[in-house]
């Protein structure tokens, strides 16, 4: 009952229409409420908050909200609802050698995620469902019991498309005939293209380059996300990424998004000016990477992601291991209000240490 009320109120918020000051009236009270909720509903969360000595009675600003390290979801089972209410368990892709994150969703949280994602998408591609080309294979979404980030992303975005077509066969090879047929069918229409940044690169751009073929997707809008690390390893810049996509398929409208499986739904979309934007339902704080004190606009530090969506697990304030910078508030040339920022890559990984690592390195 109360949850439904919250949902309705939340959904009244204008997607990118809240200036930072005004937003405090909506966002901060909800974050306080969530903090109290998770304190009472999730014992490990309460343990951490109490033992670290957070003062949850005096949360005046966003940086005052207690935050968890996002990596904790790889090590602890954190949920704020009875097991029976869990309808979906999301898992992160998990860097090699690490156990994946586990995120437990109940109906409320899952429905909020869908609604918020839909509102954000509408802002970028309009309310109409567009024909959707997914740069991935159908096998990725076959196992619906365990949700990986890729499964969640594809299924999440599939809701905003129609005539969903997978560009890749199950062996990840590009099926140009199928894609061509899809393009022929939707000639002269805007189409939505979705894929993970690296998969688009490897199995679409490079596959086309190698085969020497081109496709005509100049009416396409590509929404892509999922980390630049693998591309950065190959020294691929955003400019090169865009250029080479334009070369093989004529597609020039690209929106990168930033987000994590721990806060699915509240994604940060890149606008026409190349800036990532927080919607009304999310926010970010940049923190000093050593002592975690909040930093100002222009200073580079760890990105803390805030979201009002997580009700079933204590993930409303998470310190990520990504570095970034707040570029400004409310004044991006694209007209969207709120905070906008850029991501500068991941925290450099530590050397393996300890007595037991002699041979593993």
């Amino acid at each position, binding site marked *: 009952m109360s949850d439904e009320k919250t949902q309705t109120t939340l959904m009244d918020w204008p997607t990118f229409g809240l200036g930072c000051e005004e937003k405090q009236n909506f966002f901060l009270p909800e974050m306080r409420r969530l903090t109290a909720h998770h304190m009472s509903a999730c014992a490990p969360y309460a343990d951490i908050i109490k033992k670290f000595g957070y003062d949850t009675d005096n949360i005046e600003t966003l940086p005052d909200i207690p935050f968890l390290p996002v990596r904790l979801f790889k090590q602890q089972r954190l949920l704020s609802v009875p097991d029976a209410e869990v309808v979906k368990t999301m898992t992160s892709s998990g860097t090699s050698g690490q156990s994946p994150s586990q995120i437990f969703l109940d109906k409320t949280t899952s429905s909020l995620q869908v609604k918020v994602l839909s509102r954000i998408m509408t802002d970028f591609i309009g309310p109409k469902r567009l024909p959707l080309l997914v740069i991935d294979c159908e096998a990725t979404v076959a196992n619906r019991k365990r949700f990986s980030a890729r499964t969640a992303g594809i299924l999440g975005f599939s809701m905003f498309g129609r005539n969903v077509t997978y560009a890749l066969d199950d062996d990840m090879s590009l099926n140009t005939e199928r894609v061509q047929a899809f393009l022929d069918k939707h000639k002269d229409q805007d189409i939505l293209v979705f894929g993970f940044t690296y998969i688009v690169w490897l199995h679409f751009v490079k596959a086309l380059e190698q085969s020497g073929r081109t496709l005509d997707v100049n009416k396409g809008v590509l929404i892509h996300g999922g980390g630049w690390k693998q591309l950065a390893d190959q020294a691929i810049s955003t400019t090169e990424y865009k250029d080479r996509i334009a070369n093989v398929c004529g597609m020039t409208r690209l929106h990168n998004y930033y987000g994590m499986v721990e806060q699915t739904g509240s994604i940060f979309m890149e606008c026409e000016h190349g800036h990532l934007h927080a919607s009304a339902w999310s926010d970010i704080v940049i923190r000093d990477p050593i002592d975690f004190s909040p930093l100002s606009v222009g200073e580079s530090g760890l990105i803390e992601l805030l979201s009002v969506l997580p009700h079933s697990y204590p993930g409303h304030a998470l310190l990520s291991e990504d570095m970034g910078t707040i570029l400004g508030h409310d004044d991006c040339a694209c007209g969207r209000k709120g905070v906008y920022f850029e991501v500068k890559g991941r925290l450099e990984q530590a050397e393996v240490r*300890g007595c037991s690592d002699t041979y593993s*390195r």
Partner: protein
Amino acid sequence: MTPIPDDLKRRQTVLVGDLEQLDTHPVPSWDDARLAFLSDLSRALLAAPGVREFPDVVTFAYWCRKANLQALKDKLSRPERLQMGLGLVFHICPSNVPINAAFSLAFGLLAGNTCVLRLPSASTPTLDLLVETLKTLLNTPEHANLQSALFMLRYERDDDVNAYWMGCADGRIVWGGDETVQRMRAYPAPAHSREVMFTDRYSLCVLKVEAVEGLGDEELNAFCQKLYNDIYLMDQAACSSPQLIAWVGDGERVRKAQDKLWPVFADFADERYLLEPIQSMDKFVEASNNACTNTHIQSVKRQGRSLYRVQLDGLSSDQSACRGYSGTVHEVTLGTLEELTPSVTERYQTLTYFGYGPDEVSNYAKTAHLRGVDRIVPVGQALDMDAIWDGFDVIASLSRIVDVR
């Protein structure tokens, strides 16, 4: 020993030495030529440009200077006895404390053995400096005789290469914690071979409250320096770095002593310790993890930028699993030293003390019949490596006493 098959040769990089010259004949322990070699190594390392930036190298170089080696020989050798090396000793060197490769080499050579060392696969400035210095030294005419007795290798995880060396070694030294030790033990070894295995260890520091209460400003600073060296110099990755600080005394007095010590100590550490962002994150994750799993934890306090204090209301039987790195101390208040006893397992290695005399602590260890604690040293000496380590005389373990009558 069987010659090294060509395909195995290709899979390893020889950094020091030429394996074609490998000679497994032992020499007497505490051989003068080896002492001279190591003291020249000490001199060469101390003269290396930029060596001051490597406190670990300097520490080793001081340890193996001529006077100290002679003192060690006087203490540990029995000149009336014939003591000989075993032959070939194979070393798996640690990556958490790179300089221990140098100590390992010195122990093996002093025992009278030919030493083949597998260095950690990632290169470190410390080991690069050691390798370069050794290469230069072995090329001098006075030390050319050691060219057949000293080798350093690198290779990726490789069962066949391990099996080869383990299969022909008369002795093996494994620095590597429980998992590596178990894995290395699984390779068949000659029946007569000896082994020296360094497993996972846990170390603690006991502070008598009166002693901290009584510190004047200058003494407090000197004490912080010592404690800092123990905790921070190896990022707490060394087995002998204290993980647990046990305060002994009345609770109220301990709280006051903590309020006196930690702020000064945190400032001291903040001025000297360069904490990398990833270490800060690792500490945060670890502390959060512990806060929700260890019921003994009462609070987690961040003091300054470099120190986490994890306060415990008591010790558990698996206290040794409760570790931290890069400046995370677990703190407990005890009425007496004896309250430590139930949690001290064979895993406990170094006990550093302050406010006690060495006799007091060793008497405690004796009367409490402790299974663990192999080193009892004053605060400030936790990291002092020596030939007596982990409860045994490493040089004696790698040599034979020939009973001559």
